[in-house]
């Protein structure tokens, strides 16, 4: 399924959680995976969501450090 992290669309397995999409984004952007634990993930409404938050096709999330 395709999920948008910041401005990047990542293709990730069905059933992936927020942390998986962000990990793929970090690897894709050649950033350290350690940032995952330092940043905050938000949904399209700007609410914080957990690392284990389930994702759905087309979902937009934001990752901020």
């Amino acid at each position, binding site marked *: 399924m395709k999920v948008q992290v910041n401005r990047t669309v990542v293709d*990730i397995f069905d059933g*992936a959680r927020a942390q998986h999409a962000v990990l793929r984004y970090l690897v894709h952007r050649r950033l350290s995976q350690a940032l995952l634990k330092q940043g905050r993930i938000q949904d399209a*409404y700007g609410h*914080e969501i957990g690392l284990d938050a*389930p994702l759905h096709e087309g979902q937009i999330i934001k990752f901020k450090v």
Partner: protein
Amino acid sequence: MKKLFLTVAAVFLLASAAFAEKKEIRILSVNDIHAKIENMPQLAAIVDSLRAIYPDMLVMSAGDNRTGEPLNDLYEVPTYPMVALMNQIGFDCSTLGNHEFDGGQTGLATVTHLSNFPYICCNIHPDPKWGINTIPYKVFVIDDVRIAVIGAVQVGKAGHPDSHPDNVTDILFTPVEETLQEYKWLADENDVVILLTHIGYEEDVELSQYVRWADLIIGGHSHTQVNGGEVHNGVMITQVVNRLDNVTFITLTVQDGKVVDRKAENIKVEGYPKKNTAVAELLRFFSDNPAFKRVLATLTAPMTSYEELGCMMTDAWRVETGADLAFTNTGGVRYDYLPAGPFTVSDVLRLDPFGNDSVQMELTGQEFKDMLIATTYADSEYGFPKVSGVNCEVIFDKKNPEKIKDLKITLPDGGKFDLKKTYKVTTNSYTAAIANSPRKDQGRALNRTTASLIQEYLEHQKTIDYTGVCRVKQSVSAK
């Protein structure tokens, strides 16, 4: 005289209506606890302190009470610790989350029977043979105020909640919004209507436009931290992030059979300074879990390297998921020695402690090869992955030792590995996420943790010996 009496009576009635008593209903709601049992004594202390002021306060869960803590999920009666702790705290109700199904139909049936509170869910229709005990709605009456709570669980693309398909066979799930509308009549017969949903925040917002007859949606599933409560389409929506970091305290003001005011605020559970001692004692009891000492298989010889343990892990994933190939990032193998003798549940959880889900993909041989290389680069601290179903010869570049110059893959019997053939490949969710290589199929989560696959494999094998097993040979190029 009669006219005067009627006039006085009418004035009195109008006045009493205008000044009808306002009543306040309090609710403490949680969602997606995911068996964060170590925070339950703090939650209990919060509930105690609020109930001291508001004895009729309702405590509700919007589902996913279990899954995420081996102490709970691997108990002799799986998830019994959470049930016992929720009973002790005095939950009034819970809806079903998709993870309530992770223990299978009989597991869920046991949980529903052991709980002192009802599981409210209107869109589940289990075959009676399972004995799953749920109700579509429940009416609570507090201070003569009638509060109808209707529950609903998420239905995924596959037509059932996101759990392993085996866990939901012979259970019918009906669409959330359509099914909820069948209970609209409850709004006419009650003063307050609450939807206790496990469908996700965005879905709750969408749902709100069709259920304006409801006053409140207490949601779960998406682990969304809503700041108190938000009103969408006239319906208040609440939800908190997962694992009992926060709870939501809701006050509904009811007058003349209507909700005239709604407030919701978050209370921090994580780090709360007080604990309920009875719940803390119960937690201590559950923490000494004999299930962790259960012997799954016997090691006839010690396992003495990451390679041997990684080969065993990936064999387990390959065999138990019916795959052709399996692999793991080497960082996922957490120790390199285990003495001969019993291989226990605890040993498995130390070996694979991350709670990773298993992910299966259909990959060509070339895509598999690319994925192994991508995993090596993304997991560079640990190096080339551990594999099952093939042997690998990796040659690193002498000039740049982190770069793979050549990778030769062969079948276990030494035969040629076909780069064009399609293989069923299993890995863990972390590896599937970090391996950023081109492939047509990104795969799908199997809703079975990789640790549970290892446990099942060991139980099926009974005895194992991986002495000297080595599938990955690594060298550095001459030039």
